[in-house]
């Protein structure tokens, strides 16, 4: 009797375990994910691609030696691990030996060496050579070990090996700039190329032999829909499964029973920020007190509430919250027009002739122009809010909206501006030497505001030389603090990245890096699948 009870108990325990197991392991194969994109990819040679449409597609087909995991830590991808040697002068990568190209050829060190040679080849149209030109030599130790020797220790070099590796055996005899590979690529990734119909779609098939595992979703279809209104209508007819959303679409337009039933929405701070950059070579902005005053005069919360409908947070410096370089002790200055007026008065700017505008001792009014690029309504509206707030403290602001390429060549490159309203999209690697170091102020370089601070220079140099993340963290947090104190930019906001995905995809989890990191684990129950099964030979 007792035995029977125990048996029943054990059996029911088995039942529970089996039930849970079936829940966990019941992922079905099949179906397709259709994502909508405004632009067609340019090229599927990953080391040439610099537009996001191309990288979105090649990201599914290629791997780098390293990648970022869901918590934004650098982990091995094609490399199973690495060692830092010679005090940071050398990085030894241990490559996986179970990786094959989509055509069946094995992946080896020779492919890594080949990719490196193409990256530094002056005749190859790659925009990514600068990180790799710091390499002295690349040694192939054996089929699955390579050693990279740097001219001097270069910590961001490690993450630069997230660069997708391209196959030597297919590209050795090709001119990379014009090769047919660009429209028929072969990679190592979870999806392999099927077809590309220009300006219509790119279709990928799951790679059953992927070294991690076979992805559950059979097809990845990348649809090109150039118009944002149409893109949204396609969501409403379930013509696409995923897309980015604007704040208005996120809060209002997708707030219906239909969208709640068929879609899941995601919100995550973007890796980037919007700012007002001052030309520090201009007399108006040379005085730190003036820049601080301007910061007090503009309410970031107001901008976020109006422009982003509350979907974002105030930016406090050159790093964002998800980055390990972020310094959470730096707090955004409050909105305080009285303090702004007081600071300006100390700096010699106040309303001397009682006409409502502030003047300096020479009687000159404080007047400047904010330049921004055409085609970004959000920035134009932000400029208008700033204009209104600065008017309140007696500063005259004009707004100039210029076509993008003209803006870059005539305003940014030539330093021909008072203030610019722009945004930086950041990489996961915090090194931002090119934006803040005083040596990067030549025409066409990225410290176009002319920021010069010896301590920041030193910390940036240290940050590049050190591999120890704890030490680097201290350097970058210090940089964060100094830059916010100096106010070379008026740091405005970090917007939230908003996206939507069909709710038939299961296994999707939002992590600090986003949702795409575990795409190979996503699956659709057989009963909910919408697209034909593809049988691969």
């Amino acid at each position, binding site marked *: 009797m007792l035995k029977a009870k125990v048996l029943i108990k054990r059996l029911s325990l088995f039942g529970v375990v089996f039930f849970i197991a079936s829940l966990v392991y019941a992922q079905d194969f099949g179906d*397709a994910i*259709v994502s909508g994109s405004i632009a067609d990819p*340019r*090229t599927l040679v990953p080391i*040439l691609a*610099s*537009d996001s449409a191309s990288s979105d597609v090649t990201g599914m087909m290629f791997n780098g030696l390293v990648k970022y995991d869901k918590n934004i830590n650098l982990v091995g991808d094609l490399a199973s691990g690495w060692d830092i040697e010679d005090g940071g002068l050398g990085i030894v990568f241990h490559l996986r030996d179970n990786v094959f190209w989509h055509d069946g050829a094995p992946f080896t060190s020779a492919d890594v060496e080949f990719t490196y040679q193409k990256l530094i080849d*002056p*005749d190859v*149209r*790659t*925009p*990514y*050579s*600068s*990180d790799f*030109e710091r390499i002295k030599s690349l040694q192939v130790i054996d089929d699955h070990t390579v050693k990279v020797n740097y001219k001097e220790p270069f910590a961001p070099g490690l993450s630069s090996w997230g660069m997708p590796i391209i196959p030597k055996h297919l590209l050795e005899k090709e001119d990379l*700039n*014009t090769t047919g590979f*660009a*429209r028929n690529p072969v990679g190592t990734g979870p999806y392999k190329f099927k077809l590309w*119909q*220009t*300006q*219509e*779609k790119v279709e990928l098939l799951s790679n059953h032999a992927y070294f991690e595992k076979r992805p559950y979703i059979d097809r990845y*279809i990348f*649809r*090109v*829909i*150039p*118009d944002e*209104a*149409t893109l949204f*209508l*396609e969501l*409403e*007819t379930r*013509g696409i499964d995923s897309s980015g959303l604007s704040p208005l679409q996120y809060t209002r337009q997708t707030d219906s029973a239909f969208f709640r039933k068929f879609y899941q929405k995601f919100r995550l701070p973007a890796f980037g920020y919007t700012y007002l950059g001052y030309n520090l070579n201009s007399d108006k902005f040379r005085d730190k007190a003036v820049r601080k005053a301007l910061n007090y005069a503009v309410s970031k919360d107001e901008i976020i509430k109006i422009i982003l409908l509350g979907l974002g947070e105030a930016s406090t410096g050159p790093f964002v919250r998800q980055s390990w370089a972020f310094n959470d002790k730096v707090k955004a200055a409050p909105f305080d027009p009285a303090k702004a007026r007081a600071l300006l008065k100390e700096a010699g700017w106040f309303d001397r002739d009682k006409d409502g505008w502030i003047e300096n001792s020479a009687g000159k009014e404080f007047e400047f122009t904010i330049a921004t690029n055409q085609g970004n309504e959000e920035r134009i509206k932000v400029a208008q809010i700033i204009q209104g707030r600065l008017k309140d403290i007696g500063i005259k602001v004009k707004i100039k909206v210029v*076509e*993008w*390429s*003209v803006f*870059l*060549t*005539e305003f*940014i*490159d030539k330093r021909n501006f008072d203030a610019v309203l*722009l945004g*930086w999209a950041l*990489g996961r690697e915090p090194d*931002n030497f*090119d*934006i803040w170091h005083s040596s990067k102020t*030549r025409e*066409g*370089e*990225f410290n176009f505001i002319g920021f010069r601070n010896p301590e920041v220079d030193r910390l940036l140099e240290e940050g590049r030389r050190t591999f120890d993340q704890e030490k680097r963290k201290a350097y970058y947090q210090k940089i964060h603090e100094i830059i916010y104190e100096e106010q070379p930019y008026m740091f405005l906001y970090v917007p939230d990245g908003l996206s939507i995905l069909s709710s038939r995809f299961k296994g999707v989890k939002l992590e600090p890096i986003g949702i795409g990191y575990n795409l190979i684990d996503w699956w659709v129950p057989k009963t909910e699948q919408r*697209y*034909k099964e593809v049988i691969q030979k």
Partner: protein
Amino acid sequence: MLSYILRRLLGIVPLFLGITIISFIVIHLSPGKPTSIEQALNPRVSLETRAKLDKIYGLDKPLHVQYVNWFSRLLRFDFDRSFRDGRPVSEKILERMPVTITINLISLALIFLLAIPIGIKCAVNENRTFDKITTVLVFITFAMPVFWLALLLMDLFCIRLGWLPVSGIKSLDFDYLSPLGKFLDMSKHLILPIFVLSLGGLAGVSRYMRSSMIDALRQPYINTARAKGLPEDKVIYKHALRNAILPIVTIVGLSIPGLLAGSVFFESIFAIPGIGRLFYEAVMMRDYPLIMAEVVLGAVLTMFGNLIADISYAVADPRIRFKGNEK
């Protein structure tokens, strides 16, 4: 006649050279460089890398050298490769042509098939109710922004009624359909774009037809025809129409170069991979070889269109034909 054509052909050469030189200079002098847009504000792309890219694209050479290089390629019918993806420009243009030409041909046919009867009916009923209602409708459709109309129709037919697909020219499962299924699938996708595209043209052409028909109906020979007791149908469709339709034929002729032109708005909204977007993007990206190819294409089509028009005038009008031989 032959010498007339030869003279016209010779005249085309300097005209063509002039067009290409001026366009080349204007395009290259417009601010913004392909390399700076492509790598815009990407801190990972250093100044040295941008200089390297300029060199690969040949942008570091003086303008006249660039022009001579471009022109010598053109003489070999080589339009160079696009800066954007390194593919031959001719391949990129040819790839887009079928869709654009098909849609334009269908809608052109539709426009004339509908506009001519509408115009006739209006002229015959001049200033009566039918004419007045049509006039109002025609002006409304003429004034309506294409993108707005397109979005409204999409909302009605694709979302509320669910009858038609929103955008694109094929379904995602197109490759797995039967031939008949493929035809039906494409037709379903093309109904809205062609309707929207035709509506604007319909308004214009039907107005031309109306006024030209009214003119014809006022001619003395119509009175004669009526006086000799011909049935009204014969008066309208045989005597008046034949004369009234000539200006419309000219419009058909002038529309032919337009067959190759696309519209950015229209193609963007319906996600149609046509020529309009190709060139729009080329201009935005400063993709010089592609822009120049468009200039050449446009110039050649227009010049030959004019030539053909002139020749047909010459055929029709002896005064033009013989002027050259009088000297």
